[in-house]
């Protein structure tokens, strides 16, 4: 049945919910039923919408999030009232921090008993107020279509974000005349502080022309705005090197000669040095997060700053900028580019300097250390990158493995690195990868998760089995909450309090779900295992037993300047693998 067939008919609220979503182009939703949302579930089968049954509502939201990040479309998650709704909160906050367009639907007790502490009644709009872009309570069937359509528009427009619609049971059970077209939202009001500023464009062009040591910053906004072409044009026309934020990776092709790699707390040394020595930062769709800047008073002290950003509230929030260009990145660059003539002459002295710094750093690279028989997570990332030609969608969890992935998997395409940046939510990877795979069934998708984070949402293995999703899962098993252990090593006298973590036998765990898997202990075994996973149609798990006490280098300690990095020691003490224990 199609939503168009329903136009003008009297439908129940539950039917209006699905008809409206179908009309908005939604074909997949992730959810978990319960009393207050049952009328909606009862009506679902009449609509061409696939429902993926999750194992925990946090997973549903991460799946919708991974779906949205992989596809650039809105992701939809559904849960019941009370505990179903509260279970969603971490997922919603994760999406909020990374500006991901989501629609979260929650059931609610009947409007007649709202406010009476009825069974499974919870004030979910109150709870999610600070972690949603906006939220709605709908108590009447006739309000559903307009609320849902407006919610979707709000989630997608401007700086995207999650929106929650809480629907009372009587609104689902009541009925109204369904009219999709009449429910169209008002055109979204642009942020009134968005102004076309010809003067600022000219000033920015002037700064760029005058710069001797410029750097472009590619942020998440580059991917969300679809501004690859424009940023490439800017970089190539003036031969400006490009550094990426964690969420910007993949925006600018990693193999491009002007690509520097990741900046910030675990950014490459040459990138951070280049930033500190630059005379102009051109920030494209990023927000100068503290993980990117290090200590603010010493940040890029000699650089003028141009900030191109869609959210006016980000301007001068952390870093005071010289020119702010507020608007959609691609649009702003289209206006700016005609003011910039191509740079003539060969490689600039600045580029030569940056490339020299890069060469110096490569010497310290773990990939270039002699093989000592131990397996480093960096090896796994490097080999995975090679095997997949940098083209797979990699969904990472949070911790050391996340940083190694960012350093060693060179992303060529936008939307191929999916990771929780702003909130740093452990347990994100497995469910988000399910969402990415549902969004892009034809793409190769890898989960890269630590042994800690994997155990937080491992229940979703069962979802993978039920949906028979062709997902490849790499558990980077170091026997520790590795990033916590690293901080304890550096800043707490190696007091490894509560960071060693026991794991189940992941291969057996996978097998219990009907998912095959292997354990890998040496570098020689990495590629064969990766290839086995790639060749198998259907899910596959690899338990990589890696160096237990390796650390992510370089690292900027909290409060240090960007150039004050802790570097990998020349002789890395060899430590047993998790298996030797």
């Amino acid at each position, binding site marked *: 049945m199609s939503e168009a067939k329903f136009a003008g008919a009297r439908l129940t609220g539950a039917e209006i919910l699905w008809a409206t979503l179908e009309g908005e182009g939604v074909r997949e939703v992730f959810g978990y039923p319960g009393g207050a949302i049952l009328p909606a579930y009862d009506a679902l089968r009449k609509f061409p919408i696939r429902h993926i049954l999750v194992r925990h509502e946090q997973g549903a939201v991460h799946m919708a999030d991974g779906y949205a990040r992989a596809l650039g479309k809105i992701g939809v998650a559904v849960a019941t009232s009370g505990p179903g709704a509260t279970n969603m909160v971490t997922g919603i906050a994760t999406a909020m921090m990374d500006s991901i367009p989501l629609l979260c639907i929650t059931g609610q007790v009947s409007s007649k008993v709202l406010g009476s502490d009825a069974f499974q009644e919870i004030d979910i*709009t*109150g709870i999610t*107020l*600070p972690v949603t*872009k*906006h939220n709605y309570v709908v108590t009447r069937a006739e309000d559903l279509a307009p609320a849902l359509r407006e919610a979707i528009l*709000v989630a997608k427009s401007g*700086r995207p974000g999650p929106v929650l619609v809480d629907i009372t049971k009587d609104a689902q059970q009541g009925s109204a005349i369904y009219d999709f077209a009449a429910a169209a939202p008002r055109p979204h009001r642009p*942020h*009134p*502080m*968005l*102004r*076309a*500023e*010809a*003067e600022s464009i000219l000033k920015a062009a002037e700064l760029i022309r005058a710069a001797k040591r410029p750097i472009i910053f590619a942020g998440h906004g580059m991917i969300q705005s679809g501004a690859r072409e424009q940023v490439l044009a800017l970089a190539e026309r003036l031969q400006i090197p490009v550094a990426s934020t964690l969420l910007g990776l993949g925006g600018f092709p990693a193999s491009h000669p002007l690509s520097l790699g990741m900046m910030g707390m675990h950014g490459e040394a040459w990138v951070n040095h280049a930033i500190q020595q630059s005379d102009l930062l051109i920030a494209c769709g990023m927000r100068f997060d503290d993980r990117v800047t290090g200590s603010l008073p010493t940040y890029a002290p000699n650089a003028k700053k141009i900030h191109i950003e869609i*959210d*006016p*509230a980000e*301007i*001068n*929030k952390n870093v005071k900028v010289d020119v702010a260009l507020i608007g959609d990145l691609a649009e702003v660059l289209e206006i700016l580019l005609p003011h910039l003539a191509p740079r003539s002459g060969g490689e600039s002295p600045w580029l030569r300097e940056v490339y020299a710094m890069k060469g110096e750093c490569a010497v310290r690279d773990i990939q270039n250390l002699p093989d000592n028989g131990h397996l480093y997570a960096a090896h796994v990332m490097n080999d995975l990158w090679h095997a997949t030609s940098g083209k797979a969608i990699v969904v990472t969890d949070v911790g050391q493995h996340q940083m190694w992935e960012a350093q060693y998997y060179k992303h060529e395409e936008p939307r191929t690195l999916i990771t929780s940046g702003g909130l740093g939510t452990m347990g994100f990877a497995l469910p988000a990868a399910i969402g990415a795979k549902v969004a892009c069934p034809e793409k190769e998708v890898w989960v890269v998760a630590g042994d800690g984070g994997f155990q937080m949402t491992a229940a979703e293995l069962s979802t993978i089995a039920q949906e028979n999703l062709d997902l490849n899962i790499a558990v980077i098993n170091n026997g520790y909450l590795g990033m916590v252990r690293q901080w304890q090593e550096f800043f707490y006298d190696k007091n490894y309090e509560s960071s060693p973590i026991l794991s189940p036998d992941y291969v057996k765990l996978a097998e219990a779900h009907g998912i095959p898997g292997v354990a890998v202990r040496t570098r020689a075994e990495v590629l064969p295992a990766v290839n086995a996973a790639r060749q198998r149609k259907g899910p596959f798990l690899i338990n990589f037993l890696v160096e237990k006490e390796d650390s992510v280098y370089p690292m900027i300690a909290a409060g240090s300047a960007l150039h004050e990095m802790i570097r990998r020691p020349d002789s890395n003490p060899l430590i047993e693998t998790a298996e030797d224990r």
Partner: protein
Amino acid sequence: MLHTFVAIVEDKPGVLTRVASLFRRLNVNIVSLTVGSSERPGISRMTIVADASPTAGHRIMASLYKLENVLEVDDIGQYASVSRELALIKVAATPKTRSHIFELAEVFRARIVDLAPESLMIEITGVESKIEGLIQVLNESEDRILEISRTGRMVMRRGQHTSRVLDAMRVPAGDAENETATDPEPGIAEEADLPQ
């Protein structure tokens, strides 16, 4: 430093919470907040006075605009405007001690709006400093203040003023700011009200 914002918002349930919650999230203390209806049906007007760093104004304003129910925001501090607050002050007073309070009220252009055997109530409108002046004088003359209720600041820009939303949409950047150049000095009328 004190910032004064006027926010034009939709008159819907929960909007006040959203605005208040934003200030809490930004870790900015609200000094006063008044809400009431505006000249447009379904639209409320808030005056928010907040204590934040001098540079915080832009961010607060930009963040307010991110709330879906907020239609317009004005950072009044930078413009000539009229500012008023209403206070009700209940003072302990017997027939014997009343008369000097009557005098005080007259000097401050306040009104006595309730009289009881042991107390009286003063109504005063004006800028905060005037209200605080009266409170201070009452305290110094050893009158016992029993209750104070203050509305918080309400402000309105002086002269012909189209909203910033319209500025942003119609007026080329730069012109919008010029309108203040010819404004009279802020607060002149108010000063004349004050007792010397």
